[in-house]
């Protein structure tokens, strides 16, 4: 029961953070100096025109009123209309681009974890040997490499030189799963390689922590092999630290995906966002940033809840307090 209570408190805090985050986003784009109507029209527009456009876009209504309308709409996945061209609704535009970004982020995280687990565990077990040290040194180097630079070199090697894979573009999963996979190999690899460096360091220290525990020493003393004891006792510990790092790294991965879209000419949320920034299409910018920040906060909430459920130590400590 106590667990339920804490999850409830955490959920209330989540609601508050979602609200504050939305206020920050709206304030950043609306309260900063600069007359957006004037910018949209260009410098040689008559003063009357700007006033008319402000009126039309509803920019001259009070800040709070506009904010409440915007955030109320966002909760129903209604982000108003674009400032430009035919004033298309923002929500369908965003939904259409979601597939690319979600594919990148989910696959990027999945392969990063699959790669980091064995590498991190190996680096931990063999840490007093040369090969273990090399594994952790490599992760240190991976940490310093921007994912987009890795992407550029993957293109040079695998697309341009060897011609194994396409250098860019995206095919929807629903059109052709094979082509979809082919087009995603390089972008996902560039994200996953860099992410894996970060995650493998967490895995390494989690495994080292386990080997220092009394229960691990006891297991070894009663005859368990090292790998056997690690499987039996280490996995749970590593799982918990994986949960933490996935929550922490999610925002980084989203950002990485936005940049990677530019390297591989993928038409996802990132490129839509950047085009909107260049054209000062504030409604689109706000919608996408809100969506990204809200998903980070939401997933961190889920990680916290999972943490409560998985780790008996967290549970007991909280119950004792």
């Amino acid at each position, binding site marked *: 029961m106590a667990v339920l209570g804490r999850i409830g408190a955490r959920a209330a*805090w989540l609601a508050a953070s979602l609200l504050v985050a939305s206020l*920050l986003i709206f304030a*950043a784009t609306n309260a900063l100096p*600069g007359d957006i109507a004037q910018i949209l029209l260009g410098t040689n527009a008559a003063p009357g025109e700007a006033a008319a456009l402000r009126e039309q876009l509803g920019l001259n209504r009070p800040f709070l009123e506009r904010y409440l309308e915007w955030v109320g709409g966002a909760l129903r996945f209604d982000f108003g209309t674009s400032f430009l061209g035919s004033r298309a609704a923002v929500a369908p535009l965003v939904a259409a681009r979601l597939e690319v970004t979600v594919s990148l982020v989910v696959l990027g995280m999945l392969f990063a974890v699959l790669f980091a687990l064995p590498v991190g565990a190996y680096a931990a077990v063999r840490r007093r040997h040369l090969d273990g040290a090399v594994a952790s040194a490599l992760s240190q180097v991976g*940490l310093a*490499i921007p994912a987009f*630079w890795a992407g550029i*070199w993957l293109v040079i090697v695998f697309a341009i030189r060897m011609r194994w894979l396409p250098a860019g573009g995206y095919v929807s999963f629903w059109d052709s799963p094979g082509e979809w996979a082919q087009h995603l190999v390089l972008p996902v690899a560039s994200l996953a390689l860099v992410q894996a460096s970060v995650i493998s360091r967490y895995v390494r220290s989690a495994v080292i922590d386990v080997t220092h525990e009394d229960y691990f020493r006891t297991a070894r003393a009663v005859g368990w092999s090292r790998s056997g004891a690690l499987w039996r006792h280490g996995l749970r510990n590593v799982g918990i630290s994986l949960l933490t790092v996935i929550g922490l790294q999610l925002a980084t991965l989203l*950002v990485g995906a936005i*940049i990677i879209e530019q390297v591989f000419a993928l038409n996802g949320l990132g490129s839509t966002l950047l085009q909107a920034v260049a054209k000062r299409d504030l409604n689109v910018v706000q919608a996408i940033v809100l969506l990204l920040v809200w998903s980070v906060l939401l997933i961190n909430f889920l990680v916290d809840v999972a943490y409560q459920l998985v780790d008996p130590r967290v549970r007991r400590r909280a119950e004792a307090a």
Partner: protein
Amino acid sequence: MRHATLFLGLACIGLVVILALFGVLWTPFDPTAISDDLLLPPGWPHVLGTDGFGADVLSRIMSGARICLLVGVLSVTGAAVVGVPLGVSAGMTRGWVSELPLRLSDILYGFPALLLAILFAAALGGSTWTAMMAISLATIPAFVRIARAATLQVMSQGYIEAARLSGTPTATIAARHVLPNIAPVLGVQASVSFGIAILAEAGLSYLGLGSGPDQPTWGRMLREAQDYLFSEPLLALWPGLAIAVATLGFNLLGDGLRDLLDPRLREVT
């Protein structure tokens, strides 16, 4: 051998600092000059060759080092100046007032520098300053958290109790006892944050959200190199290498400092 990490880190940083300082006084060519010598391979007098506009690559790398360090120093300093007092006061006091900055920084944690920079660029137009502001804001939460955690640990020490009992004002305790004792942890965090700031700046200028065309940055150079991947892949090598060396330097420095402070501070960082 014991401090190999530290020295390797310092060597990498030293290289970047030398490039930057040297670049202030002299570069082989004007880093923004456009010439007819397009896409020359590495050689003489253009040691690393020239880019698609005929500008000297080495000069642009040197000029980029300056911006990279400038953005790093200013954004990390800004974040520390705001974050450390918040974290220390949160660690020294109880109640919801001290919880508030912590909670706010948790929310700010959901805003990566890139998204902040995009918001600022949408409202104000992108520049070195909006990029720096965004990176700085995004770095604040790390300082709040680390300063609070370290302060909590210091607060349980006997000398704090003694100072309190002898009637020392809280502000004096913070300045005389807490800050000097958490300074090493903050140094480690500053170094790590510096590395993150370099990567963030590179990403932003790659996307064209950072410095203008008149200021060559490593990220912008990579963006420009992408037009010549088929014929001149080397153009995509140097700026990325520079980013990696600079980031690696600060990451290693951070790790080296942490090892130096170990084991007392291991739980904190």
